[in-house]
């Protein structure tokens, strides 16, 4: 799939810390906001010229009418540390929207996010109008939970479930423990999160014989499919690469789980 990509100067509208090392930033990004769909990402450049590569960050919310996007990201190094210090009015170059979003299958859906894989699921929760439930997996500290509850309003209690590794909130364990404990079922799964979570969901979806769309993460350089840095292993020979590799930035980041190695 080919989508139109834009390079534009984006402006910070607001930024707040919403967890340990986790930040939420609204950016004015007219063209990106106008074209983005849930599951896509943007490449955000640093102002510090010694950091050459853009940071790929998934889109957490899209406010098309305001020409804004929301990025929720974890500070993982000097580049994201720079972003976390940006105040309203600060500008950076960005390229986006990049990659392919989640396909909307119009079936009863389970939206599953783990850790820093949670943010893109908020965009999806807001943009899918089918019957859906959300399962969020945290280590201990909760973030974005209220945003998900707001999407469901009065039905939040029977729509949004959480798991924490230490049992401090929701089900003790992981997202699959929630699915089993609450006997949740669906006709399609959408997920983003750490590798072990995606592997477990891929297996679960295969048992249930339902499609499972997963969003993959890999170290990137160009972000647009040219450099072949961010590949994942695929079940079949890929049409572009002519080997069993798919580019996460170009063919992904969203893949049908059975088509890739997680």
């Amino acid at each position, binding site marked *: 799939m080919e989508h139109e990509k834009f390079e534009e100067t984006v402006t910070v509208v607001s930024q707040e810390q919403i967890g340990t090392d986790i930040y939420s930033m609204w950016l004015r990004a007219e063209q990106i906001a106008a074209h983005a769909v849930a599951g896509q990402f943007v490449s955000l450049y640093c102002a510090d010229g010694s950091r*050459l590569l853009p940071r790929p960050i998934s889109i957490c919310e899209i406010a098309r009418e305001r020409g804004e996007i929301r990025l929720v990201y974890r500070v993982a190094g000097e580049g994201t540390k720079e972003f976390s210090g940006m105040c309203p009015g600060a500008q950076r170059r960005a390229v986006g929207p990049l990659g392919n979003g989640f396909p909307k299958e119009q079936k009863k859906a389970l939206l599953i996010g783990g850790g820093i894989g949670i943010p893109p699921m908020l965009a999806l929760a807001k943009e899918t109008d089918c019957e859906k439930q959300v399962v969020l997996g945290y280590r201990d500290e909760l973030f974005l939970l209220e945003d998900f509850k707001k999407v469901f309003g009065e039905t939040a209690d029977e729509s949004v479930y959480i798991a924490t590794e230490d049992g401090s909130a929701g089900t003790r364990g992981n997202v699959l423990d929630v699915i089993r404990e609450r006997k949740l079922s669906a006709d399609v799964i959408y997920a983003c999160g750490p590798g072990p979570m995606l592997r477990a969901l891929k297996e679960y979806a295969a048992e249930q014989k339902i499609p499972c769309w997963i969003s993959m993460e*890999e170290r990137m350089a160009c972000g*647009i499919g040219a450099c072949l840095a961010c590949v994942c292993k695929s079940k079949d020979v890929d049409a572009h690469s002519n080997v069993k590799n798919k580019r996460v930035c170009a063919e992904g980041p969203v893949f049908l789980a059975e088509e890739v190695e997680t």
Partner: protein
Amino acid sequence: MVFFMNLGVDLCGVKLKNPVMTASGTFGSGQEYGEFVDLNRLGAVVTKGVAAVPWEGNPTPRVAEVCGGMLNAIGLQNPGIDVFVKRDIPFLKQFDTKIIVNVCGHTTEEYVAVVERLADEPVDMLEINISCPNVKEGGIAFGQSPKTVEAITAEIKRHAKQPVIMKLSPNVTDITETARAAEAGGADALSMINTITGMKIDIHRRCFALANRTGGMSGPAVHPVAVRMVYQSAQAVYIPIIGMGGILTAEDAIEMILAGASAVSVGTANFTNPHATEQIAAGIAAYMERYGVGDIRELVGAVHDR
């Protein structure tokens, strides 16, 4: 009065409209960056290395950022010459730019197979990658000994219909030895530098940042090394040199040209700025206008002592 400038470069009989080309491996075959850059404005597109058969490349992570640069260990993943000829050459033929195909292989025979396959294709030049630090056989193994550089150059020249550019490794004690060896083997031009072997360690996990442990370093941090090697080689050989290594701006490109490069390749800068190639070409023209340089060739190797 309109000041007339010539940015055109003649590389072994191939006439480039300007000296700016893309560095192999950073630009695919132009499809992706073609959404950001008008490929008609580039002197040439140098493609990602292509081998006789498809290569899967290395495990991930394949890249890591370092201060002022990056490491890569892609491992020359490529779709093989058949797909390349069918898909990538027709794509590039739509544009008014020269096509330079970068060729890789594990053995001399594999390089020759690709070179022969390209003989009747509408390709302007061949760039032979004997300097990739990220593959176990071939690549850099050919590029570090002057004797093997001369031998493989001679063998490729026996089969090539297009002018042959040998891409040299900076991971040698004396770049002029390999430059002279390539010239002695019959190379029509040289490309330098390929990446410098480096390593990054994730101190929090205490593991190598790259799955391949080592990777090739590129980006502005290597630029002075590249300028020095281009300068030394330009003193040592008669054939033209295509300079690359950390060119981020037009100023960097001009430095390389003054050191002795007839043309330049832009690589890592594409990742930092998708418009880099086009902007560097425009910036070179602006520099020439500012200093009243009528012909880009006046700048080649024009550096002198203070």
